[in-house]
């Protein structure tokens, strides 16, 4: 077939771990025609990125292609010299990375990085490709396309950087672009803009693409075909509509089913009951700038309040106020009807014990040098005063509660656990203080959907057993739907809407809530097309958010 662009046959890839080579990809075939978009989907560790990079003939350090063949437009990339490959990269094959913030060089301006590939490959002169860059920025609807190229990466927001990176990948008009989770780190409203821009530009230049993601709904909008990977093996491959409507394999079906978890609605709270935590008219500032304005909400015993909003909306700042890390300028926090000292340093040990926190990045929130037993044992000793055998017994009970048997995990180090297991340790550490109230700060956003669901189920069960109250900070509305009883929607440091979950998800909404809700991708492959039509293409993104607020 002459229009076959990428042809990978029986590709095997291995990664070095200590002294041995462990398989990452076990013989996968992958073909891509010119102008076609292939979605590559799977959990983390499935080998998606590795396979995507291998399609460029590229391996990260400590990774090698040990078998099979990779050819790009008739060139055997495994046999080609590094010089031949270097000439293809950037010019005919381009890459868009997950974190644009980390993948732009902090030392150079955007435009200097944009023109580098065309100039170095001799495709266009500096001035010409800078001019083209501005045009691409305009096409991708970046604000101030004429001027934004003169900025350094740290002066540009994440969503804009992601589009600038797509523009950079387009600079040489490549035949193939590998998109490696380009919207995973973005807010839903920003994600839509980036998705729409990518789709539009890929269609316009008839670029073939491999779109790597773990988000099914996203891939449904972008891909013509979908390939599902599991632990280095292909599960199945089909065109998008077939895959969505009639997945064959059980694993694929289980991926599709993830969004089904939803807690039953609880009876309304008695009007005279005292909330466990009451945030009252809190205004807080970093330096002289107010970042929270008059935030108030209550959280009752055994309830979960989800605080929803985009990055920068003040969700985490609210958590910092409640924990006393950032004393509010105005307003107060009550615990069981008693005002808490604003500064954590003035709170009693018992007050500190009642408010615990679970963090987004379990990786960095656990001391890598301490064993699991020590990590959980520390709050047991500090707050509860248990020592010796009593302490050990309590830690074992806690490990039981998070479904991680003590005999297996007590002596392990965090580095020996998976992401979901680390998050469970974070939960156990919070439980060790026997708190009434736990703040969960984006606890599932770094996890795969199946693992995240396990964590949500665990949190729900613990809540029922221990009558805990949760404040659940998240930007993921699927998570809200799954676990929340009440919802607080925040924007620009203020609460724009709050109420019972079932009411929040039922129209009419506040305009901003509506924007958030309608921006969550759905499985329907026509969803993005319809949504853009509905909003009017010029109306998406920043402009829309601005207008509605």
């Amino acid at each position, binding site marked *: 077939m002459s229009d076959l662009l990428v042809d990978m046959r029986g590709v095997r890839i291995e990664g070095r771990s200590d002294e041995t080579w462990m398989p990452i990809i076990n013989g996968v075939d992958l073909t891509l025609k010119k102008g076609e978009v292939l979605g590559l989907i799977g959990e983390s560790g499935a080998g998606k990125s590795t396979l995507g990079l291998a399609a460029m003939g590229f391996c990260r350090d400590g990774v090698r292609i040990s078998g099979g063949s990779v050819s790009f437009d008739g060139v055997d990339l495994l046999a080609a010299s590094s010089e031949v490959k270097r000439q293809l990269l*950037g010019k005919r094959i381009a890459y868009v*990375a997950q974190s644009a913030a*980390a993948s732009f060089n*902090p*030392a150079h301006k955007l435009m200097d990085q944009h023109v*580098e590939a065309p100039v170095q*490959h001799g495709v266009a002169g500096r001035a010409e490709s800078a001019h083209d860059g501005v045009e691409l920025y305009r096409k991708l609807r970046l604000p101030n396309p004429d001027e934004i190229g003169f900025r350094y990466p740290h002066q540009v927001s994440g969503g804009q950087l992601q589009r600038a990176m797509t523009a950079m990948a387009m600079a040489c008009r490549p035949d193939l672009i590998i998109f490696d989770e380009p919207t995973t780190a973005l807010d839903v409203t920003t994600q839509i803009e980036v998705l729409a821009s990518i789709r539009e530009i890929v269609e316009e230049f008839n670029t073939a693409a491999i779109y790597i993601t773990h988000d099914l709904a996203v891939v449904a909008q972008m891909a013509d075909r979908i390939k599902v990977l599991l632990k280095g093996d292909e599960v199945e491959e089909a065109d998008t509509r077939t895959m969505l409507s009639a997945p064959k394999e059980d694993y694929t079906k289980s991926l599709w089913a993830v969004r089904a978890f939803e807690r039953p609605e609880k009876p309304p709270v008695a009007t005279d009951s005292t909330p466990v935590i009451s945030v009252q008219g809190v205004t807080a500032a970093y330096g002289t700038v107010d970042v929270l304005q008059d935030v108030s909400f209550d959280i009752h015993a055994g309830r979960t309040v989800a605080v929803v909003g985009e990055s920068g909306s003040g969700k985490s700042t609210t958590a910092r106020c409640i924990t006393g890390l950032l004393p509010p300028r105005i307003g107060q926090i009550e615990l069981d009807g008693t005002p808490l000292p604003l500064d954590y340093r003035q709170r009693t040990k018992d007050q500190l014990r009642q408010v615990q926190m679970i963090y987004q990045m379990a990786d960095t929130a656990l001391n890598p040098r301490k064993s699991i037993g020590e990590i959980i044992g520390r709050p047991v000793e500090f707050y509860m005063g248990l020592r010796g055998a009593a302490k050990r017994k309590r830690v074992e009970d806690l490990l039981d509660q998070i479904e991680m048997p003590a005999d297996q995990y007590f002596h392990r180090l965090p580095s020996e656990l998976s992401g979901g297991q680390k998050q469970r340790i974070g939960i156990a550490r919070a439980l060790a203080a026997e708190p009434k109230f736990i703040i969960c700060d984006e606890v599932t956003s770094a996890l795969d959907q199946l693992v995240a669901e396990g964590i949500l189920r665990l949190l729900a069960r613990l809540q029922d057993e221990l009558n805990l109250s949760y404040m659940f900070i998240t930007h993921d509305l699927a998570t809200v739907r799954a676990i929340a009883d009440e919802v607080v929607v925040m924007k620009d440091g203020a609460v724009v809407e709050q109420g019972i979950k079932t009411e929040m998800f039922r129209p009419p909404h506040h305009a901003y809530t509506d924007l958030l809700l309608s921006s969550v991708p759905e499985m329907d492959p026509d969803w993005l097309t319809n949504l853009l039509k509905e909003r009017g293409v010029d109306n998406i993104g920043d402009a829309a958010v601005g207008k509605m607020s």
Partner: protein
Amino acid sequence: MNSVLKIILQRLALGLLTLFIVSIVIFTAVNMLPGDFAEAILGQGATPEAVASIRRDLGLDQHPIVRYFDWLSGALRGDLGNSFAQANFASFVGDDSGVRVSVAQQIAPRFANTMFLAGVTAAIAVPFAVMLGILAALYRNSVFDKVANISTLTSISSPEFFLAYVLILFLAVLNPVLPSLSNIYEGMGFGERLQKTMLPALTLTLVVTAHMMRMTRAAIINLLASPYIEMARLKGIKPMRVIIKHALPNALAPIINVVALNLAYLITGVVVVEVVFVYPGIGQLFVDSVKIRDIPVVQACCLIFAAAYILLNLTADILSILSNPRLRHPK
């Protein structure tokens, strides 16, 4: 830009404070040296009267705190006092027309020589070490990398005088291309001066290269795993350009700091090399002055050394700050 200016002024103020504290330490330490100039110059047969007379004449009989503030206020005015050793001792035997040589007069030419040697060495060593570091990072784990690492480590591990004699053997004795004596003097032409300085400069280059080269290599390699370097490689950029254009600008801060430390060493720590090559630098003067307890000279040398350290580290700090675009271009 304002924030950068503020940081620079803060560092400058801290530098001055450090220098003040160091001046106290220097004065205290020098005063704790056993014996004093009077005893040293008069030898074992000194009568208590003669010792007391010299002490009185030099102001050594005053309280240390008084002497410290005399010295400090003098130093602030640029007057570092008079050398004891150069004083005309006729005064002590009756004739009172003694001429005294100021410390500044005595130190200035020596310090200029030291700066010249340090400058020549830096001009050779810094570009050489950084280039070597870049190449070692580019061809990491290759034979070139290993040879560069081992040879620079060998040279830094060998005593300086040994390196000096090896260089003399090869470049002055077996192949007489450079003079083995670096006895430079005032009024010498630049070319000749440069030629005479070459052997000590090369010796010092061997001493300081390893540190700078290894830091350059490590700082660059440290960055090679970062996503923006991977991005540059995936854009098909040539490996050399990836290192120089993408890694080096982000690795500047640690490199600048190590360069500054080594430059400070070139000013303050080169006594051995000066002695071997009979180079009239400040290091020799310093050691001689300690031997005869010529306290004003010792204190002035210490103060200059401390100022050099502080100034170079300050410059390194400021350059590191300026190398960070986040600080140069705030949001």
